[in-house]
């Protein structure tokens, strides 16, 4: 079946384009350049329509939706606990965060208690996930700046984190480890020792990354003073996370509105000063150290107790009870066939993801399936800041800025 290319053009007719050349004479000619959706430096299938004057970007328009998966629609078609693996695939570098935002919203609606051990286990995995996400960001961003060896070093450490995820849940990505009411399983034997080895190793590795990058004049010139944006503009555009913190605003939901027992831990919020690309890099790099600190404290103070709520209406009974207890069997059957019902209501549960505020809105109508799941993905909102960032800078700086923005297209398009 051959595709009609003329038809393909017609579909895009409505993308009107208006550049705003600020104070340009008539001798200057503007060039519209299409970047993407298949371009190695767009971190996915992002499409950018750039208006250039020579090599200077005068305006840029992001076009998204190339990996729109309809996850929110699919979630309405599944029982509550079967939605977790679906929402995990939105922002595919922050899968623990996605599932926590969703589970937290459902727990709010159910008014379910999460045992302290489960909360600590959640924190351990969330922060490991944050390090992993920043490692992938660092590796691919360095690749965009021309430093290919960083990619291998970062992916080496990423593999170690994925090994830890595999130990607890059996999967490398999209682990579905968080459940409504707790976590799926307790950590296995040997996990703690392996995690401690990793925690001892990681700060040294992060030091090495800094040595590799920061003493490199090319990297410094490409990042320092490039495409800054002040905190007020970022806030008006809804931008949160490392981008906002790089501009000097220490807004972090882990401190501002602690969830999941984040108030038990002692950690700092790295902030930048001017909000240029160098600050964005430094803030994320410093967050790796802080995450290591949080994990160490959570592992030291890991409380004893159940790893999931004992409410049998929400969580599956332990496997050994099925052989002896009729009630357990009934609960198991009800949960597996229908799932649990959630009383009608709405909840919005915001958490601090690796890229900013990640909020999940869940509307329950009393049945066993959610009536609406919406994820406020930070990349989706943050992408709006790209245009004011890169306006009137060079095209090469656009690539560097896009890398430092850290957009995850799966999260943007959902």
């Amino acid at each position, binding site marked *: *079946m051959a595709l009609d290319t003329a038809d393909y053009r017609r*579909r*895009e*007719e*409505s*993308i009107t384009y208006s550049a705003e050349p600020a104070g340009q004479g008539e001798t200057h000619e503007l060039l519209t350049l299409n970047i993407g959706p298949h371009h190695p430096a767009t971190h996915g299938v992002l499409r950018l329509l750039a208006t250039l004057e020579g090599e200077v970007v005068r305006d840029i328009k992001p076009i*998204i*939706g190339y990996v*729109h998966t*309809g996850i*929110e*629609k*699919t979630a*309405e*078609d599944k029982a509550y606990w079967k939605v977790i693996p679906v929402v995990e695939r939105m922002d595919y570098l922050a899968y623990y965060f996605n599932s926590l935002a969703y589970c937290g919203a459902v727990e*709010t*609606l159910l*008014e379910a208690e999460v045992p302290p051990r489960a909360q600590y286990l959640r924190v351990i995995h969330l922060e490991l996930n944050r390090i992993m996400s920043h490692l992938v960001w660092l590796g691919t961003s360095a690749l965009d700046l021309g430093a290919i060896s960083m990619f291998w070093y970062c992916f080496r450490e990423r593999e170690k984190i994925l090994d830890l995820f595999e130990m607890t849940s059996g999967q490398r990505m999209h682990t579905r480890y968080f459940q409504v009411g707790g976590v799926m399983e307790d950590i296995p034997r040997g996990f703690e020792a392996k995690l401690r080895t990793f925690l001892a190793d990681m700060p040294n590795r992060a030091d090495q990354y800094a040595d590799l990058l920061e003493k490199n004049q090319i990297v410094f010139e490409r990042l320092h003073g490039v495409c800054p944006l002040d905190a007020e503009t970022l*806030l*008006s*555009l*809804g*931008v949160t996370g490392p981008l906002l913190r790089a501009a000097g605003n220490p*807004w972090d939901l882990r401190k*501002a*509105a602690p969830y999941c027992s984040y108030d038990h831990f002692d950690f700092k919020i790295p902030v930048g000063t001017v909000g240029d690309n160098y600050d964005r890099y430094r803030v994320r790099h410093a967050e790796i150290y802080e995450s290591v600190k949080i994990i160490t404290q959570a592992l030291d103070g890991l409380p004893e107790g159940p790893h999931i709520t004992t409410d049998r209406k929400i969580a599956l009974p332990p496997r050994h009870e099925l052989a002896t207890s009729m009630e357990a069997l009934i609960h198991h059957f009800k949960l597996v066939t229908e799932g649990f019902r959630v009383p009608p*209501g*709405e*909840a*919005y*549960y*915001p958490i601090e993801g690796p890229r900013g*505020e990640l*909020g999940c*809105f869940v*509307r329950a109508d009393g049945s066993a399936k959610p*009536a*609406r799941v*919406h994820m*406020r993905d930070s990349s*989706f*909102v943050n*992408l*709006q800041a790209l245009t004011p960032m890169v306006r009137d800078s060079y095209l090469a700086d656009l690539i560097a800025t896009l890398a430092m923005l850290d957009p995850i297209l799966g999260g943007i*398009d*959902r």
Partner: protein
Amino acid sequence: MPDATELELTAHELRDRNAESILGTDFGRGDRAVLLVNPAHVIDVLTALHAKGYTFLASLHGVDYYPDEPRLGVLYELLDMQNVDRITVKARVHTDDPRIATATGLFPGADFPEREVYDMFGVVFEGHQDMRRILMPEDFEGFPQRRDFPVGGEPVLFTYNEETTYGKWS
């Protein structure tokens, strides 16, 4: 989070400014404070809340309340960063010709989320500079997130049905 009393006080204050703006309040689980507003006056309410300190629009999303009427809802999750306070503004519109004023003048960050609500629910934000589909292709028909839109999907090609299933490449 504002408690139930504070929410009522806020609602009274907003009614004093504009008697028709607030249709009701709802205080739910997880300390969720919701102001149900008249869609014609939503910008009025948002401006007043912005002046009160709710300067950050955390999220803007649509909901389909099928079979309740009016079916569609547009929810603004506002955040006061000084007092770490959240409040939700909800406007309900009917499915036939759903229209609501844009909030991009107040919150420039509402640009993409409003386009997404238009794409998924068909709510037209009047005054928005670029009211086009954002996620679906330009020529897509229908609004996929509405409850009466089918989930869709296609039969999977296996060796036994690839001759009969539509769309086998050749």
